């Protein structure tokens, strides 16, 4: 609770942080929405193209925010030279990570709501058209985002400050093989098996299926959930191992001091 309060103070106090959390997703939505409308004007064969693109932008933002809620929160503590105070407080690493989950969830709800309202007002795209599938699709992206965030933070434990850029880069490294804006079939044959190892692929394919009127997406959801559970467990173990390795090498002390 104390850690959540701390993040609440940090985010509500800093106009620039709020700008960072809200500005980029909204700009993405506006720019990509306009591009999609333009393409629609050029070629109106597929009227769902705008919906696909706007849905993808809103959904990718969920993944990106969930990831950043862990990795960027960790970096902010590092930069403010406060991490040591948090590390030597009587809280477990799991509690520390869980507080970033909660903060991320709050951010995602707020930003997704703003984006959904804007998408409806500007482009008459209704995210609720996804109906009941919205919740499991959302949860799958959230879990994948948290796993990616823990993985990124573990890499910062391993490689130190030089790996900081990964906090922003990793979701975009995964994006081309996550079927965010296009179906897996568009990828070269040799890259498709890689895409099928990414939980987000099934979420975005599922989202497009629902928007195309296909209500049967249980297999997408199950595959995404199965992969998410596997990655969450594997990455939690990797995170613990990197933390211990950082303690043994003295890298943790160098990071937090």
């Amino acid at each position: 609770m104390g850690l959540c309060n701390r993040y609440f103070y940090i985010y509500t106090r800093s106009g620039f942080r709020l700008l960072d959390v809200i500005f980029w997703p909204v700009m993405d939505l506006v720019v990509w929405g306009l591009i999609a409308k333009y393409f629609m004007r050029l070629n109106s064969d597929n009227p769902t193209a705008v919906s696909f693109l706007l849905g993808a932008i809103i959904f990718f933002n969920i993944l990106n925010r969930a990831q950043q809620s862990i990795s960027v929160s960790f970096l902010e503590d590092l930069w403010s030279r406060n991490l040591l105070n948090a590390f030597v407080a009587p809280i477990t690493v799991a509690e520390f990570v869980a507080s970033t989950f909660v903060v991320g969830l709050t951010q995602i709800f707020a930003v997704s709501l703003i984006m959904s309202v804007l998408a409806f007002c500007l482009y008459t795209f209704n995210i609720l058209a996804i109906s009941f599938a919205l919740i499991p699709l959302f949860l799958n992206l959230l879990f994948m985002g948290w796993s990616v965030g823990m993985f990124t933070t573990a890499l910062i434990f391993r490689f130190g400050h030089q790996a900081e850029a990964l906090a922003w880069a990793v979701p975009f490294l995964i994006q081309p093989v996550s079927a965010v804006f296009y179906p897996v079939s568009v990828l070269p044959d040799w890259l498709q098996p890689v895409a099928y190892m990414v939980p987000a692929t099934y979420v975005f394919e599922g989202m497009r299926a629902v928007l195309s009127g296909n209500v049967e997406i249980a297999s997408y959801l199950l595959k995404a959930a199965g992969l998410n559970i596997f990655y969450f467990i594997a990455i939690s173990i990797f995170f613990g191992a990197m933390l211990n390795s950082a303690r043994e090498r003295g890298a943790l002390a160098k990071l937090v001091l």
Partner: protein
Amino acid sequence: MAADIESEVETIVSVEKLHKSFGKAVAIDEISFQIKRGEVVGLLGANGAGKSTTIQILLGLIAQTSGKVSIFGMDPWKKRVAVLQRCNFSSAYVALPYNLKVIENLDVFAQLYGVSNRKKKIEELLQLFEVDHLAQKMTGGLSSGESTRVNLCKALLNDPEFLLLDEPTASLDPDIADKVRKLLAQVQAERHMTVLYTSHNMRDVQELCQRVLFLHQGKIIAEGSSEAILSHFGQETLEEVFIAIARNQVTTSLLSGEHN
């Protein structure tokens, strides 16, 4: 048997043959020491002597290569939360989040330490360190002296039985440093708190510490009261001892303290 139990209870920190190497570089070379309840022990040494590594091992930030550390009779890594609940830490080099008000920062840490009646506790500490007028000020806007005193408020929130202080008076002017020293001495005496203190300010150490551990190249080369150490090395001040050891101008034959 009863005496054994009493001795066990009274030893707050026990370090046995602690060794830490980073690859081939030895940072700490099988040091052993104990700190009893209510003692204020100074950990001194030149840069690279091993004092930061020792403190970081006690705080669970670095894992030792070999040897045993126990705080309150517990392994500080395996029983991390139980140990840290009864400890606290303050360093001139560790900040509180700059974009929170002083009162918000202290409230957050009071929650993390599970302090009951947080508001009253925070007010008491802010008054004790004469920084109550800063409660609504942003932490990032504090001067070094104010920041040090707010950090000390944070370090005393949970009434720690064992307090680690890493150069708490670094970067303070002599007036504020003197105030901080006197306040620390007062709080330590009132609460019978155990303190491990590192500083490059020998005046701090001479005034506050009942016992001093001198580290040199990863080994404890002298342990005892300031007077005993001065006498052993034939110097007038701890600063002279420090310089002589750092420059290898004295034979670093071991001076054992009363706890060895």
